[in-house]
Structures are given as structure tokens and as C-alpha cells.
């Protein structure tokens, strides 16, 4: 960490390739890509919110009519016994 190169941040001299006119759009596209890739970082933290609704796993497809008919009477009683929440 003591070299002049690192502290000054200067690069060593190097040969810059000739820039042809047709290279300009390619360079522009590359710059654009780098800028766009960097954009999400600017927004800061990714916030994860808890779902508002209670998580209910739906497995309705596997429930047969037979089961529903068997439970119907008890479910009806349950609804009547808990009228405040139905």
C-alpha cells in the first residue's frame, strides 16, 4: 500500500487503442450497461414486508366432495356456535 501507484490512484501508462467511428455505439452501450447494473445499488436496502394476510396454504384441489359432505353438519354447528366470527 505504499506504492505511488496505489496512493495516487494513477494508472500506468498504456497504449489506448485507436477509436474507430464504428466503435462509439459499442462503447456507449457498454457504458450504459455498467450504469444500469449499478442502479439497484443506489436504491439502498431491499425491504421485505410481512404479508398483510395470514398465510393460508391452499390445498383445496385434493379435497373430495365426500369429505366435505361428512364435515358439513359439524361445520354448520361450528358456525352457529361461533356466530360472532362468521
Amino acid at each position, binding site marked *: 500500500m505504499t506504492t505511488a501507484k496505489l496512493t495516487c490512484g494513477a494508472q500506468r501508462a498504456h497504449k489506448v487503442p485507436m477509436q474507430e467511428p464504428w466503435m462509439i455505439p459499442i462503447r456507449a452501450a457498454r457504458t450504459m450497461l455498467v450504469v444500469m447494473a449499478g442502479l439497484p445499488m443506489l436504491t439502498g436496502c431491499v425491504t421485505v414486508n410481512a404479508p*398483510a394476510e395470514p398465510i393460508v396454504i391452499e390445498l383445496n384441489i385434493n379435497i373430495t366432495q365426500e369429505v366435505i359432505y361428512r364435515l358439513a353438519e*359439524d*361445520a354448520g354447528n361450528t358456525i352457529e356456535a361461533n356466530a*360472532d366470527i362468521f
Partner: protein
Amino acid sequence: MRTKSVTLFANYAVAAALAFGAVASPALAQRDPAYSAARSAGQVGERVNGYLGIVGSPSPDLQRLVDDINNQRRQVYADRAQAEGATLEQYALTAGCLAISRTTAGEKYQAPDGSWQTRTSAAPIRDPRCP
């Protein structure tokens, strides 16, 4: 014998009423006024899965109300499902069938395709498996 037991029951009822004051026992309690109002206004509706849903855009108060009721329902479903040897989802779906049947005109319910419907005097659109 019959009159005696009725009198006895009445005594118990009076004793219970005195013990609980003006508060009715939870099992026979009526809907919370806010819940009743939200139902009548079509802000909440009965979902196919046996739980309450919010029809429009949820406000924090409404969300809290619905979450609270749904948590209580799930508890009841879980208890009864276990007693009946069924799964929570089976029991909840069955209760959903019945809860949708019991909606009154103007209240909202969810059709099997997931859309919200307003109950009319006609029978509601329900899952074909519903009793």
C-alpha cells in the same frame, strides 16, 4: 321433571349472567358492530377457503379486523378438524361452503373463479363439491 330442569337451567342462566355482568358468553356472542358494518357495506366478503377477505383496498383498521377474525376462525377450524379427523383445509373449505350459503343479499362472497360477487336472493355460485 321437565319443568324442574328448565327452572334449574334458568337459575344457571341467571347465575351466569350475574357472573359475567352484561357480557354475553363468547359462544353466543353477536358480530362486532365494526364487522357487521363492513359486511353490510361489502368491504369484506366470504372467501371460498373459509376465511374472510377484503373486497376493495384494505385500510389498516379493516385489515386488523379481518386478520383477527381469520385467526379466530383458523383456531376453531383447527380444533374441530382434529376432533373430526380431518385436515384444517378440508374443514375450512367446508365451512366456507356454508358461510357463503349463509350470506345475505348485498353481502359479498367469492365465486370459485376467485371473483367477488354480491349476494342476491338467488343461490350463490359455489364450488361444485359444496353440499
